[in-house]
Every structure is written in C-alpha cells, then in structure tokens.
C-alpha cells in the first residue's frame, strides 16, 4: 500500500544536470518526483517511499543500476515495481541484461524529453489500471 504523499516517480541519477532536467520535465508533466544520486540511496529510498515507478540510471556510484534492479526485484514490496532504465551506454547487451533482470522500459541517452514522458506515462498507466482492478 502506498503512503499518502508518496512520489509518483523515484529518479535515480548521479549527473546533476540530467537530474535537474528530468525533475523539470516529469514535474512539468504533472507527476510528483523524488531524487537520489547513488545506488544505495536508491535501494533505501524505494523501500521507504514506495513510488509508482522508478527511473534508474545505470552508471551510478556505490551500486550500479543493474545491482539496484536485482536487489529491489528480490524484495517483495518492490518485486513488481515498474523500472524505467536510462543509459548512456546504449548497447544491445545492456538492454538484454536489463530485460533479464526485470526492467520494465529502456530509454537511451541522449533522449527526446517526450520519449521519457511517454515511457513513464505508459508505466504509470499500467499501475493505475492495476490499482483500478483492486
């Protein structure tokens, strides 16, 4: 059960400039956001905040995106949490790994802002539908 006041989106990104832009466009699209800048903070935050979705960069300090994904998929509360992977590597291998680890979506940097918004909207929509079905 999500707490009242929980953000819609948890953004995990270590590049300050990208973080700022992501915050701006997603808030501008009407979602509540929360940000963290490293992998370990992300794992802690996701348990506490229980966001609707997580936007996860792969290159992160302390724990990288794959490690974070693996851990949160192993925990019951976040087992089904939609996770949108952002990566600057853009290699097929990364996409495959992310899929195997249970990523819900994949956006390659540099991206068009609308790509991110659409992808997030898609994932939040599925969540909403799931909510409705309850």
């Amino acid at each position, binding site marked *: 059960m999500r707490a009242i006041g929980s953000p819609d989106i948890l953004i995990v990104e*270590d*590049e*300050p*400039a*990208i973080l*700022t*832009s*992501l915050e*701006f*466009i997603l808030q*501008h699209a009407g979602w509540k956001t929360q940000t963290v*800048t490293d992998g370990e903070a992300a794992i802690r935050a996701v348990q506490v905040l229980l966001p609707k979705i997580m936007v996860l960069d792969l*290159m992160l*300090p*302390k724990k990288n995106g794959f490690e974070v994904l693996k851990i949160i998929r192993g925990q019951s509360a976040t087992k089904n949490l939609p996770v949108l992977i952002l990566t*600057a*590597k*853009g*290699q097929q291998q990364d996409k495959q790994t992310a899929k195997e680890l249970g990523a819900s979506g994949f956006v390659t*940097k*540099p*991206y*068009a*802002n609308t790509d991110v918004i659409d992808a997030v909207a898609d994932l939040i929509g599925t969540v909403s539908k799931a909510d409705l079905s309850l």
Partner: protein
Amino acid sequence: MISGTLVFGTSIAYIILLFFLAYISDRNARLGKGKLLRSPLVFTLALSVYCTSWTFYGAVGSAARNGLEFFAIYLGPTLVFVGWWFGLRKLIRIGHKQRITSIADFVSSRFGKSERLAILITIMAVVGITPYIALQLKAISTSLRVILTESPNAALPQSGDEVGLAFGVAAAMALFSVMFGTRNINANEQHHGVVAAIAFEAIIKFIALIAVGLFVVFGLGGGFEATYARAQGVGVSLDASSNFGPRWITITILSAAAIICLPRQFQITVVENANENHLRTASWAFPLYLFGISIFTMPIAIMGLSLLPEGADPDMFVLTLPLAYDQQGLALFAFIGGFSSATSMIIIASIALSIMISNHIVVPLALRSPKVFGLEHGQGMTRLLLTSRRVSIGAILFLGFLYFWLTSGSGALAPIGLISFAGVAQFLPAILAALYWRDATVNGALAGLLVGFAFWAYTSFLPSFGTASPVITNLLLYGPWQLEFLRPQALFGLEQLDPLVHSVFWSLLANSMALIFVSFVTRNNAVGQLQAAQFVDVFKQTENSQYSFTRSSAPLNDLLVMTQRVLGTDHANRIFETYSNSDRIKQNKDASPHFIASLEKELAGSIGAASAHVLLGQVVSGDTVTLEEVMQMADETQQILEYSQRLEQTAEELQSTTRQLQTANNQLRQLDQQKDEFLSQVSHEVRTPMTAIRSFSEILLTNQELNGTQKETFINTIHEESMRLTSLLDEILDLNALERNEQLWTNEPINPNLAIARSIQVCTPITEQHQMDVRLGEHIRHVKVEANFDRICQVFINLISNAAKYNDADQPFLEITSEITKAPGKPDQLLIRFTDNGPGISSIHSSIIFDKFWRGARNPDTAQSGSGLGLAISKEILNQMNGSLELELPRIGNTKAGACFAVRLPLHM
C-alpha cells in the same frame, strides 16, 4: 776359436726357440689370451726390425769409414716417430679401415684399387729390397766365416767360397721364412707368432750389441772418455760439422722415408698393428731403442781401428774384437745378435713381399685364367695363396743371393742398404699424396713411381753392378752412346755431387714432378674418387660410413662360393651366417650392396683391394658405377640435403612467423578489445553532457512560459555541458597524442616551485569552493628539473583539483612537499608529494586509478566532474619527462589516512 758344431748348434737352438715362441704366441692369440702380444711394448720392439745386420755390423763399419754419418740412419726414423706420429696414425687408421695388406695394397687401394699400380709397386719393392736381402746374406755369411775361421787373420776379407756359403744361408733363410710366415692356413690374419718372435729378436740383438759395447768400452778402452780420446789417432772425425752436409741430409731424409716406405716397416707399423694407440708408446720408446742401440757404435769403431790389425774389415768389428781378446762366449752371443738382426729382417721383408707378389701378381693372373691355376674347384684360392707365398719367399731370397753374387766384392754393407733405401723412398710421394692430396690421380701415381723408379734404377741400382760387367763400368764412365750428360752418376751435368745425393735428388724430384703434373692433367675414376675421400678424410668419417661401390646385387650363393674359395669354408660360412641372421633379408636371395661392400673389404684383407675388387666384379652382376654416376649421385645427395635443409629452415621460419602472428594477433585482439571499451566509455562520456544539452534545449524550445531565472539557469547548464564536451574531446585527443609518443613539447630546466605556486593560484577557485587549505611543506628551494612548465602545471592542477573535489574531511587540506632522491645507477630525481587528508584511495582502486575514465566517488556538491582522463594524462606527461606519477601510502604521522601522489622529475644537473 769356436767350433762349427757349437755355432751351428747354437744357431739351430736359437731358431727352435723362436719357433717355439711363435707357436706359443699364435696359440695364445687364437685362444684370445696373449695380452702381452697386443701390448705397445711388443709393437715397439717389432718396429726395431728396422735395425738389421746393417745396423748390427754395418753401422760400426760406417762409423769407421765416414765418422758420424751413421747417426743420420737413426735420426730419420726418430724424427718421423716424434714429429710425424699423426701421419703414422693416419696410415694405421686407414690400414685398419680398408683392411690393407701391404704397402702396394695401400697405394693401389687409394688410387682406385688399381691393379697396375699394385703390380708396379710390388715389382719396385722386390727390386728395391733385393740389395737389402743380399746385404743380410752377406752379413750372415761373412760373420759365419769370421767366427768359424781359425786363422789369426780372420778379420781379412776372403771371398773364396763365400758365394757357396751365402747360397746355403739364403736357402736356410728361405726355408726358415716359409716355415715362419706361411704356417697359417688363414693367410689374411695377422702374424702374431712372427711378431712375437721379432720382438724377442729385438731384445736379443739389443742386449748382444750392448754387451759387446760394454766389453769394448770398459774392458778394452777404459771408459767412454778414454775411448773417444783415441778417435783422433785412428783418423775418425767426431766433429759434427765435418760430417754435416748434403749427404748427411740425404741420408736423414732417406731413413725417414724408409721407416714408412720399407715393406717390412709398413708390415709391422700398419698391417700387424693391433691398436692405433700403441703408436703413443712407440713414438717415444722406438727412438729410445734406436738411441740405445747406436750408443756403442762409435766406440766399437774407434777401438776396432786402434786395436785390430790394419786392413781388418770394420763391418765385422763387433765380432772380431771379442774374438781377438778371446772372449768366445761374448763373440758367440754377438754372432747370435747379428743373426737375429738379419733373420728378423729377412723374415718380415720376405713375408711382406710375398704377400704383395701373391696378392697383386699371382691372384690377378689366376683370376684371369683360373684353369691354369687350378681355381675351378673348392678351396683352390687358399692353397694358391699359400703356395704362391712360399714360392715368392724362395724367389725373393734367390734374387737376394743373385744380387750378392753379381755384386760380390763391391765391399761395405752400408752403401748397399742405402741403395735399397733410395729405392723404396720412391714410394714416399705417392704415400703422401694418398694421405693428403685428394686430387692426386692413379695416373699421377703411376707416372711418379715409374719415373722415380727409372731414375733410381739408372742412377743407383745399375751403378752398384759396376764391378760385375765392363759394359756397366763403361756406361758409368762415359755415358750411353758416349753422351756424357747421361752418365748415371752425373746426370745433366750434375758432376760434383755424391752419387747417393745425386741419385736421390734426381729420382725424388722427377718422381714428385711427374706425380703432380700428371695428376693435374688426368682425372680419377669413380672408385678412385671415393677411395681418395676415404683416405684423405679418414678422420672425418664415422665408424659406419661405407660406400657401396656397386649399385647392383649378387646372388648370395655365388658370393658364398666365391668367398669360400678365398677365405676357406669355415670363415666364409661364418660371415654369411652373421649376415643372413642379422637382418630382414632372410628371404632375399640377393645380397645388398652394403653387404657386398663389406665383403669386398673382408676379401681385401686377404688378397688385397685390387684383386678383391676384380674378384667381386666377376660375381656381382651389376656394372661398376661410372664417375659421372657417382658425381651425379653425390650431387643429388647434396641437392636433397640442401633441399631438406631449406625445407627445415622454411618450416622453422614458418613456425616462428606463426608464433609472431599469433602474438601480434593476440595483441591486436587485446587492442581491439581496449578500443571497444574505450569507444564505449567515450560514447558514455559524450552521451552524458549531450543528454543534458538536448534535454534542456527541448525544455527551452517547448516551454515558452519559463521565467528569466529558469531560462538563464538552463542556458548556463547547456553552456557548461558544451564546455565539458569540448574539454573531454580535447583531453581524449591529448591523451591519444601522448600515448602515441608524439613529441608535443621539449623538456627544459624549469623551477618546480614556480610551477607549484602557479598551479595553486590557478586552483584557488576550486580550493576555496571546497574550503581546502593548500600548504607548502618542507621543500627544496633552489632546484631545477627537466620538464615543461605548462605541462607540469597541468599535472599539478589535476592533482590539486582532484584533492579538492574528493576531500570530504571537516578541515580539508593538501600538503605539498619535495625532496631529492638518489637511486644507484639512476640520475637524481626531485620527489614532490601531494598528501591530503581525504578519504584516501582503497587498495582495490589503487591499481586502476590511472586507468582512463576512472572516477572516484564524487563530492555531491561538485557541480562539474572531470572527464576521468586527468590521472591517465598526468601519468603520460610525467612518463615523457622521464619522471613518474605513483600513488603512495600516506606517511605515518598524518592524522587521517588520505591519499598521497608522488611526482618524480629528473633533476637538472
């Protein structure tokens, strides 16, 4: 006076003793016992067959007539054994390898197994040795007459019934030699018994001569000094210089040649030699024997001249001195000694010559007309060999007697010996060429020998008959057809020379010239070519190297029958059994070329190389190989060798190329992987600022309602990210250039303290932002380093800003110190340390911090991070300054473990 009964009795007893000795030795040799028989001592003693009755009696005569000249006779052999032992070793090695049976066999075998050459040498040897045998007969008969005569004038020569006596001696000697030399059924084996008897005789004659010498010097002369003091009085010159001259040199050369070329010496040295290593002992022991046997020669001559009546024969002093002083026992012993000397020479010489005659003259004739020689059935060959040898011995001794008879009255012993020496010396050029000159040909050898022999016969042999016929006397005086320049002893106007020197000079000169000239204009045939290599390069060949002269095969049965004829049934069967048992050829009825070749050697050991070659040629169906074919074979072999060597070389080259390629490939793969990683990293590094730029520009484009502050912030971010992108690209290019070792700057002496000060100043904004205190600690003040000012500042700025960015301490500081380090064998360096109190670098990371794109965990406040190339670039820069950049453990004493970067720069001297 000594009674005839006693003399003959003693002589016969002595001969019986010799027979007994020979018999025992033969039996021991057959049973494989007689170790002593195969010892170097027996070999050395047997060699002293060189010392004949000429030495025993004649040397004293020579000393009495010509002073020290006799000594040259011993000097030649001594020089050969001491100074040319390696040549003798080569002779022996070849002799063993080729199963050589005689000196004629040796030369003929070397020159293509030529029959003509073997026959020529046999004839030359027989003619050359005849005077020598006559000399022995003369010595024995004269000594017999002396010891038997009761007359007080015994010393005077009386030629009355000496001829009859000599004939008797010759007949006895022939019988004696036949019994000794041809007792063995197996004619090809070494004569162990005879060699043992000869060695025994060597001891007897040595002791006898020494005994006489001791009696003469100490019994009659009163010591050496007193003896030599009489020399002047009797007209013997002891002055070496008066004896030294062309004649002396000639005799030395002749005696040196004789020790090699005399058939009997060759027989003992090469054919009868059991072990090449015996030469080691002989090379000093034989000269010692010669020295011992010659030590009393001069004293006996002096005492004989001074004590015996005028006109006494000096050749008999050894006998007449003891007789004159009534030492009959000693005289008898001396007689036996002289008898020993003569018999040993006659036995060995006649055996050697008879082997040559039977192998090189009789056998070839028999092979051509087998019917006449009864060779058609069974054992014919063995019987023929023995018979022909027996007849030869008789003939040789008869020739000796004939010579003695014809030249009787020609006087002294020594000149006769020297004629023989000069005769056999004609073999020397051919032997030396056989050993050392590969290109010497059979025709060259034939020509040399023929010419040399002709010159010797005309200038030496013929004149020795001077007293026998007035025709010869006239010839000597006026030359043939009154042509004075053709006088035998003054050829081509060479008048003043001693006849011996004259003869040796012309004959050896003509001999060598003919050999050399004809060898240059003729070629060897195939066999000659192969044999030349076998002889000249005998030491280069391995034990098994053997040529197959026939490329064809022969039925084993035919070969067996033929071998049985020559070697006897038992011996032949043994050889063939070994062969058929040995290998896979059991079913094969034909013998392999290899076997035929070894069989040929086996036969050669019995009947000589030339005869064996001809004999095999009758059975072996194939033709002899022509020279062209041999050369072609050799060429092909050479080509195959070269080809396979080239192949091997190519294969090796290929292998090493493959290895190099593999290494290069691995390196390339590694590089490729590194490049992939690098590209991926670059891509990531570029995409990150690009993402921000794209995102913010889209925001600015799509959101017109943004306020001015927001717009400004976003545009600033875009600008910063663009700058970051630019500097990233710059750094990538910079690093690339550094890694390719491009010379981007020149090092020059700079003040490092100035560079540090400048760098601190440049970094002020970032250090102030992080409130980091930059301290200058202990440092070297006046110092210069080899570096580039701007580039070293780049390094320092990187280190200072890194320290600022990653230092999360409450009161962050960075301390910069410097000191001079000295390392042996290296130039002095300035060590600059940058020590901070930040989080430090964990040991996990210490190995990768200089890798490209590695970044530490950043301080979250940091607005802008670096490219991750800073340390990699700094390290490269310092490498190119012959310095270094390393991470050190922070010094103990620091309050907090931080990071410590050590920069080393070469000092400017």
